[in-house]
């Protein structure tokens, strides 16, 4: 399978293969927000709660989604403006973790049971649906023609698919076998891997060889192959028999491992494997950590907030967080440690650049193959007008021309920008990353998309109103 454009920034601090188990903390902080949706708590102040019991719920089409408690303990509700936004869980020795769901065989489970169990176990939101553009509905009427399982998370540095595969092999193999229960008749499952020659990939092949509904799709290791819209488009393009109304669901390997653990072993989601990487991290590695663990614990003793910034997510999409206030969420799989820019390098643009790596082969690291260890929160240049170098067009995975979009949006020509594909932008951030003029393209595009959405809504409301008025007359 091919994707357009794409680029993999080569930066230092790649997490090692080891997965360190972090001990259970005395206090866990669970944010009641997931996938941009606020969940409402179903526990009371001071209540003692068992492992896997629901802390909060959110009603969607066809049922309720729960946030299961990652550990047994005592609940404290934290309110902000009268709304409970966070639950603090005081864990204690006497509360034991245990199996709480029924174990099922893949052949003996009904569709209904898969859906309700996954929703109660907090695993359902790991699915992304091309139909809703987010979490799929729990209604049995939404059945995907294809479920895509992606083991390639290229963005530096998200928890690597291979690390997860090696660690949770049995759960993943088990989890994949449950997927036909969710699919439409004659549906398929596509597994996205880096290359067929990879020993891990080969093992997966041989283990799952007998299933006719399973397809393997090797992809190049380029950001953003894991992007949901990019994957969806690539799958549709590869198989021309896809119709517009055919639904595609996407889930990553950690989600599949959670499904295997939940339906096969009866355990809800309670842990995440998180990649701790970046040039600001002393020991880049993966850690397996209880949901709700404060980021402070991950950052370690040596962390200093004046010299290092922590991003939730990878280099291209990560958002700044505060280690004191933030904790590991249900969907987290990466924290990137980016040094703050402090020094101003003398005649930086004339230096050979042994420690800098760029999309253009114009630094010495090109010869030595060194990763970029000088990357910081610095803009690494100044804002300039577009020089039309065309780098953004080369990397754009949606096949857009960001320089043209920028030109239109610069003079607020929203309609023209929409015509040249503003709505097809997948917000991967690559154009912004490579721009030598340091133009904030991603921000500009997201803002313009929002504005267009508002305008469309307004126009729709207006047509509705006129239609109403006309029928009233």
């Amino acid at each position, binding site marked *: 399978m091919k994707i357009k454009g794409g680029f993999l920034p080569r930066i230092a601090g790649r997490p090692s293969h080891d997965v360190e188990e972090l001990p259970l903390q005395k206090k866990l902080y669970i944010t009641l927000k997931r996938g941009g949706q606020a969940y409402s708590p179903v526990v009371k102040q001071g209540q003692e709660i068992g492992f896997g019991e629901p802390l909060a719920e959110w009603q969607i089409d066809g049922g309720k989604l729960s946030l299961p408690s990652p550990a047994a303990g005592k609940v404290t509700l934290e309110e902000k403006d009268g709304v409970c936004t966070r639950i603090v869980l005081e864990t204690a020795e006497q509360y034991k973790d245990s199996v709480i769901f029924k174990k099922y065989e893949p052949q003996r489970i009904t569709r209904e049971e898969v859906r309700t169990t996954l929703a109660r176990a907090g695993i359902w939101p790991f699915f992304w649906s091309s139909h809703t553009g987010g979490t799929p509905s729990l209604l049995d009427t939404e059945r995907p023609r294809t479920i895509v399982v992606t083991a390639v998370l290229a963005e530096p540095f998200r928890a690597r698919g291979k690390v997860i595969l090696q660690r949770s092999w049995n759960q993943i193999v088990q989890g994949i076998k449950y997927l036909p229960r969710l699919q439409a008749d004659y549906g398929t499952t596509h597994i996205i891997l880096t290359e067929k020659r990879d020993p891990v990939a080969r093992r997966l092949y041989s283990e799952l060889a007998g299933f006719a509904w399973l397809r393997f799709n090797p992809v190049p290791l380029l950001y953003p192959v894991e992007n949901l819209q990019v994957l969806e488009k690539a799958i549709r393009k590869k198989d021309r028999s896809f119709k517009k109304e055919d639904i595609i669901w996407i889930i990553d390997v950690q989600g599949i491992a959670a499904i295997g653990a939940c339906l096969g072993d009866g355990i809800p989601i309670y842990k995440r494997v998180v990649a701790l990487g970046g040039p600001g991290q002393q020991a880049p590695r993966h850690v397996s950590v209880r949901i709700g663990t404060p980021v402070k614990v991950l950052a370690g003793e040596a962390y200093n907030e004046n010299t290092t910034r922590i991003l939730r997510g990878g280099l291209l*999409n990560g958002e700044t967080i505060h280690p004191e206030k933030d904790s590991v969420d249900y969907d987290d799989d990466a924290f990137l440690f980016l040094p703050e820019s402090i020094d101003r390098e003398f005649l930086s643009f004339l230096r050979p650049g042994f420690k800098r790596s760029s999309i253009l082969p*114009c630094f010495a690291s090109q010869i030595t193959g060194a990763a970029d260890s000088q990357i910081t929160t610095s803009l690494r240049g100044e804002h300039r007008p577009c020089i039309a170098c*065309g780098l953004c067009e080369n990397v754009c995975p949606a096949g857009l021309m960001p320089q*043209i979009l920028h030109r239109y949006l610069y003079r607020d020509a929203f309609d023209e920008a929409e015509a*040249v594909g503003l709505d097809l932008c997948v917000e991967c951030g690559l154009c912004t990353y490579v721009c030598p*003029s340091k133009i904030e393209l991603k921000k500009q595009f997201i803002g313009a998309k929002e504005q267009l959405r508002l305008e469309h809504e307004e126009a729709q409301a207006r047509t509705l109103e006129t239609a109403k008025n006309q029928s009233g007359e």
Partner: protein
Amino acid sequence: MSKIHPLFEEDGKLQPLYPIFAALDSFLFLPKIKTENAPYGRDPIDVKRYMSLVITAIMPCFLTGLYFFGWRVLLMMIVSYIAGGAVEVLFAITRKEEINEGFLVTGFIFPLILPPGLPLWMVAVGIVFGVLIGKEVFGGTGRNIFNAALVGRGFLAIGYPAVMTSSWVTPGGIPWGHLAAGISITAPQAVTAATPLVQARGGELTAPLNLFLGNIMGSTGETSALAILLGGCFLLLMGVSNWRTVLGILLSFAGLGAFLRGLLPEMIHPVWFNLLSGGILFGTFFMATDPVTGPITRAGKLFYGILIGSITILIRFFSGFIEGVTFAILLGNIFAPLIDEVVIRSRIRRYARER
């Protein structure tokens, strides 16, 4: 720098000169600007690195020019930088913007596309006109329609045709070229002997080795094909110049040349001579690949190249001008937005299908 910084602040004594200070400050030290939006880390490539790559690539041409035509070339360069730089700074101050790196390339290229014997005041007039009319009136680098250096050259070619076509200098020989001769401010004696292109009109073709090495008469930087190819390939490898433009020009130029020679063998020179003589190589690798003034779409660059290559051949053989690269590229600049428009239209149709 931090010591003198207060002088240029809001109420400092030298406040109007702030752009000069800012340019110098950010030229010497990497600016201390932090990312405010995701992605929070950025690629180390910036406009300064980009432009310094271009200058590095043109350096071999400058050095061969210096070798063959003497220290005067350096003098021309200094005049070009001072006169053009003054215009750039003046506009930056009045516009209250930063001084742009793009000028460093324009000022560097300009003397290289002029005859080496040109009076220095003419160099100054040319660059001032080029930067002013070719760039600043459009809003500076990134917003200009025409290549500033070529506008300057075009102006001189039309305004002072006699001087422009007779200010050639005989290239110096082995071992020291013209470097031993010392500097003279006054223009050297006009040489009546002609450039290879002029001689070829009389039916006398220069030897290919001379054309390749560059010990021929011609504009300062354009004589040596070897130096141009060195720098040009460097730029292509670095990904700074676009291979589509280069390929488009060379293919259409050579192809159309070969085709016309098949029809009119007496009038049209052989392809190797066409390619090695005049400014076509320099124009191809360093002028036409200027990203700002060419089409900004990737697909458009190939058509842009084909257009320039074809027009050059037509001007060379079917007009009063000896060489047509300058005007071909300026014409290409005019057509660039149109080419972009065509590409954008076809893209719009494709996007509509994708939705």
